[in-house]
């Protein structure tokens, strides 16, 4: 709070009991913690968040095991734990369940992404916790949702993305589908953060909490609503479109000059005949571009193979960054395909303060993390605290919030309850 008692962050004063782990839940609660909520991560040494073991030395191990072609990422929890607190509770212990309920009683929200039924079996399901805290918002995120015949499915990102229909729509028209891997977790997590905060707004207004059952599959399916309507209204099973757009041409990714393992590419999207004329001008008005077939969008859409080949010939020996500037100067939407080093060096992101230098645990220096994608004028969100060590907030939560005495906490630690 500021001196005048006003919150500094949008979710300041919101306390969240965070049972989430790995990426769907991790990204969701990273949004909560970045928005200023007091996000209390529940872990135990018996069941660590797998994100904890991905950093530093473990990442090097991953590399020697070589399962993924590239896996040196530091990080999981170093990044997904930013701004969070951590307490340890061994949920196999009935006394830990009682403590978890007491924390829930003084909180606003519970978030979890176990397989459906796991927390219920531990005695921490919605029906129990709503009695503990009637204003509670409780969000459960799982691959297929909390009910339905496939609810128990093992749900890794690439699996639920394929089962959502999303992956079958992604790819070249004449090629196999594209595997949608880890970012699909972030998509589902962002949806979870949105829906839960919206429920919190309602709870603040009415005093009434609720349980939300969010299916990751359905988040991804909802992105393709227009394609599903094509089936529903027209009985058509939509096909993959590659990079093409149903109403605009040219609309594609073209080769450009420069060395890179993945190639260098420029993207161009022309949304009107006026922009087409601007592009023709930028190309130096070559003879082929004067072909009347290309004058209007209908003709360009009908002759896209030839159009794309011609544009690709023109872009192939040009630098994609210079080409972006030239095309932007005449009002044509064009950007390079951005590799991590390009994004890291972006003058736009730098000017907008999109990066934060944050210390790493164990005095291992600092690293840059990416801020949330928005700027609030009155309650700016920020990355303030590095990820917590396990149990870092045990004293704060058990002694200060719940009023337990230190001896009791120590005793429960020794007995493997707060552990």
């Amino acid at each position, binding site marked *: 709070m500021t001196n005048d008692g006003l919150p500094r962050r949008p979710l300041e004063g919101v306390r969240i009991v965070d049972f989430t782990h790995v990426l769907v839940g991790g990204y969701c609660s990273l949004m909560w913690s970045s928005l200023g909520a007091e996000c209390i991560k529940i872990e135990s040494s018996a069941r660590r968040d797998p994100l904890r073991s991905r950093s530093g030395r473990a990442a090097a191990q991953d590399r020697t095991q070589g399962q993924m072609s590239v896996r040196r990422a530091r990080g999981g929890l170093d990044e997904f734990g930013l701004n969070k607190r951590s307490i340890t509770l061994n949920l196999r212990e009935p006394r830990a369940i009682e403590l978890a309920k007491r924390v829930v009683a003084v909180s606003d929200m519970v978030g979890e992404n176990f397989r459906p039924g796991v927390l219920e079996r531990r005695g921490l399901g919605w029906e129990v916790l709503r009695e503990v805290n009637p204003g509670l918002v409780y969000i459960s995120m799982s691959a297929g949702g909390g009910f339905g015949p496939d609810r128990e499915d093992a749900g890794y990102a690439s699996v639920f993305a394929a089962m959502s229909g999303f992956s079958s729509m992604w790819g070249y028209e004449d090629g196999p589908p594209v595997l949608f891997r880890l970012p699909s977790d972030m998509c589902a997590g962002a949806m979870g953060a949105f829906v839960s905060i919206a429920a919190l707004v309602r709870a603040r207004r009415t005093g009434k909490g609720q349980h939300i059952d969010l299916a990751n599959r359905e988040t991804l399916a909802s992105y393709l609503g227009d394609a*599903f309507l094509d089936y529903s209204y027209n009985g058509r099973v939509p096909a993959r479109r590659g990079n093409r757009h149903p109403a605009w041409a040219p609309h594609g990714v073209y080769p450009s000059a420069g060395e890179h393992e993945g190639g260098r590419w420029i993207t161009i999207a022309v949304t009107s005949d006026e922009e087409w004329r601007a592009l023709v001008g930028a190309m130096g008005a070559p003879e082929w571009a004067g072909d009347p077939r290309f004058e209007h969008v209908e003709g360009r859409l009908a002759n896209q193979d030839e159009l794309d080949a011609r544009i690709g010939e023109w872009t192939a020996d040009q630098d994609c960054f210079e080409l972006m500037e030239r095309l932007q100067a005449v009002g044509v939407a064009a*950007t390079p395909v951005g590799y991590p080093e390009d994004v890291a060096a972006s003058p736009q992101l730098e000017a907008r303060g999109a990066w934060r230098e944050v210390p790493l645990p164990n005095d291992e220096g600092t690293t840059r993390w990416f801020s949330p994608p928005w700027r609030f004028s009155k309650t700016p969100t920020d990355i303030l605290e590095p990820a917590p060590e396990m149990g870092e907030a045990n004293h704060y939560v058990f002694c200060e919030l719940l009023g337990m005495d230190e001896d009791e906490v120590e005793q429960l630690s020794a007995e493997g309850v707060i552990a």
Partner: protein
Amino acid sequence: MIKVEDPAEGDPARAVPPYAGDIEDRERSLAFMHFNTNKLGVSLDIESEQGRELLFELLADADVFIEDLPPAEAERLGLDYASLEERFPQLIVAAITPFGSTGPQRDYRAEDLNLYMYGGDGFTNPGALAYDTHPDREPVKLPYAAGEAISGTSAALAIAAALLVQPMVGGQFIDLSRQEAHVSVMHRFQMRSYLTGGIYETRPTNKHAYGDCVPCADGYIVVYAAQNHHWKMLVELMGEPEWALDPEFETQAGRAARGDEIQRGMEQWAKDIPGEEIYRAAQRLGAPIGRFLNLDEVSTSEHERARGFFVDGYHPIAGPAEYPIQLFRATEDSPQFRRAAPLHGEHNREVICGRLGRTARQLDVLRQSGVV
């Protein structure tokens, strides 16, 4: 939610095929119909002073104003936060723009394709089988308008947070950059690898040593079998073929070293078996294996039927259909189909007369002058 469109053409999404019934009509664009379900619609010429005044009257009674004008356009029209703040202190103003409302590239043009490729993880896609099939082709964007929906979800999340704090601090400006939304959601994993390890995946390397996308009798299955216990399940699922019992395959490193061999063995095994059969058998064992479902298969799946993801909707021109909108179930507020996307200017009377108190005659005059 009152959607404001210009009276001449309306939202450009109205001109995007496919159309309901394949009839080209601005009231039948499926993209427009999906993304505008449950909204009211008015048509207002915000280039005219009268049109802007009507918009301001609407803002006086609103909690949130969402706009996606180029930043310079918003300023020219007096719809930027600096111009609105004093008059509407309670108003949350959310600008959703390609690059944000500040910075050296704020006026650059970019569509979904450009933004996904520039800020998202376009450099990694396609990987796996789609890359191996066409290694010489270009990176490929997210399907349909998914990239826009991803940015929109980030905006909705920020707006909900601003609404939570609105009773205490009043209105404020939310400056959402779609480029940053792509970096945050889509690029994050590779970015962390680059920033902390100096390396990342590209199309040729965006895959596991084996698994991922495997052709089967009637489509493709997705296989994740990196860890030892998953590998054991996979071997059992395949009926313990002799090649898979090679002692070298007992460790992750051993399997990774001969991933191509494993992939060929899996392809041989899967090629004559329907995907549904493999998926069901795998899930019975607890193995994270699924199918690449086509949209008709999702639409008719027992799971989505049981969950009610598809909701009956009715559009006054396009007629009835199932809308894929119930993406979560809540004890209080599950998403519902309350009304179809608005026809162009459908609620002009309801909003301009009903809410802003204009008479029918005044509305006629506004119509004749092209303001509405």
